[in-house]
């Protein structure tokens, strides 16, 4: 034949523009508002923690790829994204080696032992976070008060709104709710600015990079469960707070504080470890929200959002079996 040399492959012959790298870049773009908020309130200590985790994660991934002779996929920026996320959920007051160890743990314990991107069962960031907070609880609770609250640019370790709530339910009255939403409260570097996180999360949902079911489910589950928690809490009655309005205030408080927002929009919908089917994702999200409030109210830990995600991650394979009805599928055995 006189044909020119032609390429043959299966369809489709067009592919979309989204690659793993572009997806991770968009995730980072969505995290930018939270990062800026964190930098605004926690200054250079906060920024240096984030930079250290990113650097540590990158270096660890390069070493891990060398050691295991896995294909080098460092250019997909997954290590950078994981480092960034870990940095944002660490307190600003940790010593320098905590983020370094954390970044390494994220990559080694969370990701590479399972074979890299796509294969790990649980969110690597949270695996590292749990390892750190079980090993060095005293450092992992060194939350700085934001500069705006503290005394003239001096950073001071204080208790977070959730710690205060755990000790004394009366602290509901202490914190201004608006401060909690903009992030002007003690807490992790990137987890306090709820509005910034919502902005980033909405971007991800609109770009269809995360299923909307998970954040919506998480927030809904949190509100419902905290209403239940508030309704059954006798201490509220003793304070004279009664009725739906007071209970809603508790729910509002739970929504805005701790790691819930970063969990709902960034950690729970982490692609590899969350379900993909619509109903599975919704149940996953609801589970995260409900477990968060359960741990916060009755558990031993102060914040339950991260533990909730790890728990629900183990259910992902089961939740993925809740498949939607296939179009045109006939009841089996009926033809």
């Amino acid at each position, binding site marked *: 034949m006189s044909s020119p040399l032609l390429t043959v492959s299966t369809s489709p012959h067009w592919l979309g523009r989204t690659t793993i790298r572009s997806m991770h870049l968009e995730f980072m773009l969505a995290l930018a508002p939270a990062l800026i908020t964190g930098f605004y309130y926690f200054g250079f200590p906060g920024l240096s923690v984030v930079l250290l985790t990113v650097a540590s994660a990158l270096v660890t991934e390069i070493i891990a790829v060398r050691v295991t002779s896995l294909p080098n996929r460092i250019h997909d920026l997954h290590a950078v994204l994981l480092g960034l996320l870990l940095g944002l959920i660490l307190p600003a007051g940790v010593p320098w080696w905590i983020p370094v160890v954390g970044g390494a743990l994220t990559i080694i314990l969370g990701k590479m032992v399972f074979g890299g991107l796509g294969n790990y069962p649980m969110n690597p960031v949270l695996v590292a976070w749990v390892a750190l907070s079980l090993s060095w609880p005293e450092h992992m609770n060194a939350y700085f008060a934001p500069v705006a609250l503290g005394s003239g640019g001096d950073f001071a370790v204080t208790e977070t709104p959730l710690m205060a709530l755990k000790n004394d339910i009366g602290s509901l009255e202490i914190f201004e709710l608006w401060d909690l939403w903009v992030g002007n409260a003690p807490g992790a570097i990137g987890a306090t600015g709820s509005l910034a996180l919502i902005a980033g999360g909405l971007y991800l949902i609109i770009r269809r990079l995360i299923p909307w079911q998970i954040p919506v489910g998480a927030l809904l589950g949190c509100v419902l469960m905290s209403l239940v928690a508030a309704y059954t809490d006798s201490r509220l009655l003793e304070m004279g707070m009664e009725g739906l309005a007071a209970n809603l205030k508790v729910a509002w408080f739970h929504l805005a504080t701790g790691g819930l927002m970063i969990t709902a929009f960034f950690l729970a919908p982490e692609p590899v470890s969350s379900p993909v089917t619509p109903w599975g*994702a919704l149940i996953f999200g609801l589970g995260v929200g409900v477990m968060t409030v359960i741990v916060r109210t009755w558990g031993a830990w102060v914040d339950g959002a991260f533990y909730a995600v790890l728990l629900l991650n183990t259910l992902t394979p089961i939740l993925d079996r809740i498949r939607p009805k296939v179009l045109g*599928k006939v*009841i089996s055995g009926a033809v």
Partner: protein
Amino acid sequence: MSIATWFKGVRLPRGTAFGPPTPLPPPERLYLPLRQHRGSVCQAKVEPGQQVGMGQLLGSSEEFDSAVVLSPVSGTVEAIRDFADPAGQPVPTIVILNDGQDIWATPEGEVRPPLSDPDEVAKARPTRLLRRIREAGLVRAASHGLPLHVDLSPPMAPRSYLFMTGIPVVRPTDTLVIRALDHDPPVCPNQAALAGLNLTELDLGVTALKRISGAEKVILAVPSGQVANEVMALARLREWEVSSQSTTHFPYCTDNLLVMSLTGREVPTPYGEPRDVGVVVEPLVTALEVGRVLISAKPNLERVFAVAGDVAKPQAYLARLGTPIAEAIKAAGGAVGGSGKIIVGGPMMGFAHFDTLTPITKETEGVFVQAAEHLRRYDDHPCIHCGRCVASCPVNLVPSELSKLCEFQRFEDAAEADLFHCIECGVCAYVCPARRPMVHYFRHGKSEVLARRMEE
């Protein structure tokens, strides 16, 4: 279109709008496969060296599910040898050397009196119309199409399907959908045919199809904002419903999904057809061919098809059947850029070919040329479980899981997970950030399962 489907599928770039099809001069050599549709292969009725006239019978079969192959030009039979069909399978093919005379085999080329009165057609016996269609060798103008007389005949025994309600449903055909839409946007023969429409052909063709199928209602599915006023006037006169659809929302112009959005009926898969829910869907090109066959009383020897992609002048053409793709690409100004892929069909669902002598057959919708610079590469990255394929799959499968099952050779498990309901539209591969060759895995899985079941 419901809210759920709005977020499914993909939005493809709108291709260049095609004008009416341009006639292409018959080439020097024509290649006529003895099977140009889904069904049985014809036996050759001519021998190498024999003189043939236009419209002369080249191949036919005793089987019902085959369409006759007629000579589109006059000339000499040069050889009969195997060529690859659009799916890549070898099919015996008759090569004809064109003498350029275009002499009809029968003196006038007419076998039966022309039918050009719509009222007469509307009252004609369906079997009589069907016989004419069969003699003209018409095939449904879609990839993997059935011979038209098979497509229009009701099945021997009515099939019933249990739907979610649990009630068996046997529906008589009540709706005829004329699809002036193309499922792979840049390759759009139907839209081109709509642009250069002969109203008499349309009227006759649709009336005949309606009469044969027994449908009461005709729906003309057209691309939004591309219908001439005369067509609208004719549709009003004949009481056809005209429905505008988006052409860029892939794959919602494929038959089953089109039926779903036009009538709300769910076509049973994997082995069902729109007919099982009482709908017959025919492409506009086919309807026009039926009209032309009835008016001229001559067999149909030409085909409207589109040449799109990286060619100098993407355009629709009217060419003799059997014209090699190379001639069509040459007429369109030649391929631009390095040699990449030549795709029969569109960029989303077409088949890449290795031979530019592959002919335009009765099931060809068009040719898409892709330059080497525009080739996209797949990757063997593991699935990252992002769920974009699940969110986009138009038939609600979980492609990520299926691709993993097929990748690791668990084919029976994949079949359990509804692998055979996949329509191979390629949306999952299009949206996949890991660039996994999803459709490749599914086709491999399906063929493995079928092969194993054949062995048992």
